[in-house]
């Protein structure tokens, strides 16, 4: 080790310019993918888990009656298609939110968080970078789950317009849950205890968002709780599109879409603000790198 050569190297003047944001985010995505790819084995297990889950509900659907589903307006496919859409999208959202939390915890645990945030990256870029990859990855999961369902014989009633509408609804679903992901990441940074929150969130949505049964089966107060969660609107809209051939021109689907939009517009700034607060609080008590 020669200290002089290092000093020489560092004293060279390098003109600094700001790295474009897409390059920064691209490098985050690439990094996360590389880390993710090292867990190939666990990945396969994860996918098998999803497949098993779908298979469970396939068999379960054999002992159900489709009446309640049809009453709710989802005319085609019966209980299995209904549950398949519920499971696929609920897992989609849960996987994304949990992965964000986990990667933040990992960064804290490894002490890389302090390094990244003390480098010139600002926190919004950091967040966008952290979350982008997991939405890409969970979309892949979503497709695998839906494909398994189709193989097992899920039937749909969809038109090109309704498929397009369901894609729009999925994008709104992502946007609205980005806010939830950011919010829980902010809480993790302060409390260092994210997982219980994510799990509670997961169970709450399963209970009241109509993943496994139409919302109408719930007593009125739980139905109202369900209306807080964006997942409820997404599931209703997507099911109407794929199980009843409706599209965004249908007033109910449009109503669902507008609700999601509204949620996103209101929740995103709040989530960013709270994340900022959590981040500042962690910096203030010096626990950024703590686990």
């Amino acid at each position, binding site marked *: 080790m020669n200290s002089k050569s290092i000093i020489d190297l560092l004293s060279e003047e390098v003109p600094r310019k700001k790295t474009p944001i897409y390059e920064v985010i691209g490098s985050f995505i690439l990094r996360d993918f590389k880390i993710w790819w090292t*867990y190939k*084995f*666990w990945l396969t*297990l*994860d996918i*098998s*888990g999803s497949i*098993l*889950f779908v*298979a*469970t509900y396939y*068999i*379960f659907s*054999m*002992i*159900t*009656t489709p009446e*309640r*589903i049809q009453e709710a307006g989802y005319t085609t496919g019966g*209980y299995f298609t209904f549950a398949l859409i519920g499971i696929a999208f609920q897992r989609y959202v849960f996987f994304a939110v949990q992965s964000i939390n986990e990667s933040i915890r990992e960064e804290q645990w490894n002490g890389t968080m302090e390094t990244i945030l003390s480098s010139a990256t600002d926190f919004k870029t950091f967040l966008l970078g952290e979350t982008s990859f997991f939405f890409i990855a969970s979309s892949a999961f979503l497709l695998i789950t839906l494909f398994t369902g189709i193989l097992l014989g899920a039937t749909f009633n969809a038109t090109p317009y309704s498929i397009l509408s369901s894609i729009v609804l999925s994008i709104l679903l992502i946007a609205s849950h980005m806010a939830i992901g950011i919010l829980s990441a902010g809480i993790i940074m302060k*409390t260092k*205890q994210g*997982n*219980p*929150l994510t*799990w*509670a969130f*997961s*169970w*709450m949505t*399963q*209970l009241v968002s109509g993943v*496994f*049964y139409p919302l109408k*089966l*719930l007593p009125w107060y739980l139905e109202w709780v369900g209306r807080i969660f964006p997942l409820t609107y997404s599931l209703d809209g997507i099911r109407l599109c794929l199980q009843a051939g409706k599209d965004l021109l249908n007033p109910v689907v449009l109503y669902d879409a507008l609700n999601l939009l509204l949620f996103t517009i209101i929740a995103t700034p709040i989530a960013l603000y709270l994340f900022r607060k959590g981040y500042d609080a962690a910096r203030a008590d010096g626990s950024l790198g703590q686990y």
Partner: protein
Amino acid sequence: MNLKDLIDLFRDEGRNNSSNLIHIWAVFWANFKIFLSYRTWVITETLSTIASIIMYFFMGLQVDAQRLVEAGYGCISWLSFALVGIASENYLWMCISRISHSMQHEVREGTLEPIIASPIRLSSYIIGQSIRGFITSSYFMLGVLIVGIFVLRTPLMVGPENLLSFLVILLAMVASYMGIGITAAGIILVYKRGDPLTFLFASITEFLGGVLFPLNYLKDYPILWTLAWLMPYTYALDALRRVLLTGATLASPDVLKDLTILGIYAIIFIPIGLKVFRWGCDRIRDEGTVATY
């Protein structure tokens, strides 16, 4: 305290003979205290358990009662059918994953090195952790049963004789899986990352064990049907349902048959698990990666 007093205190040698019971107790006690320190986790986990039971209640509203009758369970509500499955599957999962979870923690936190460097025997460590696992999982199982029976008014047969049979079957079930839990812990020691049990164990038992639907429906798929009856859990759940839904006891021949099979699994797999665990310990001591995460 000054140095001189401290040194004087250490002049006296005092030491007991090695006692496995004290070691087991120490492992249990320390880990139970750690469990209690995760207060938020305990609370949210309790809430999610309750939420999940309520969810199953609503799911049950869509079930065609006729199908259960056809499957030979008589005229019972689907929720009582499912509740036995959910409670036992949860319980099994928590007990079995205890050892591998704690191994992951000990490696991650670097506390495994001091344990290996102390005179405690591996089996004492495993027993201590298991006791901790039994107690905490019993808490959650009781939660499931209490909500099911008292809040959702699920009819289950709970008399003293049923309860005794229930406990015996639970113990046999956990014993039959113990070997697998210890094996997983041994594998984690070596490969550090991820718990092979976490991902698939719950989904496989839920699917193949027939937690949510009568197993008859798998008969059309011979491979799945065979696999299902290779799993000890299927026997345990069968016995538990007989006891809690139809009022059978330990004396019933079907229950006895199930228990015997569980016992055979325990006898075969526990020694294998211990071997793998020992292999894992020796391997990391050889690689020098006891505390590497």
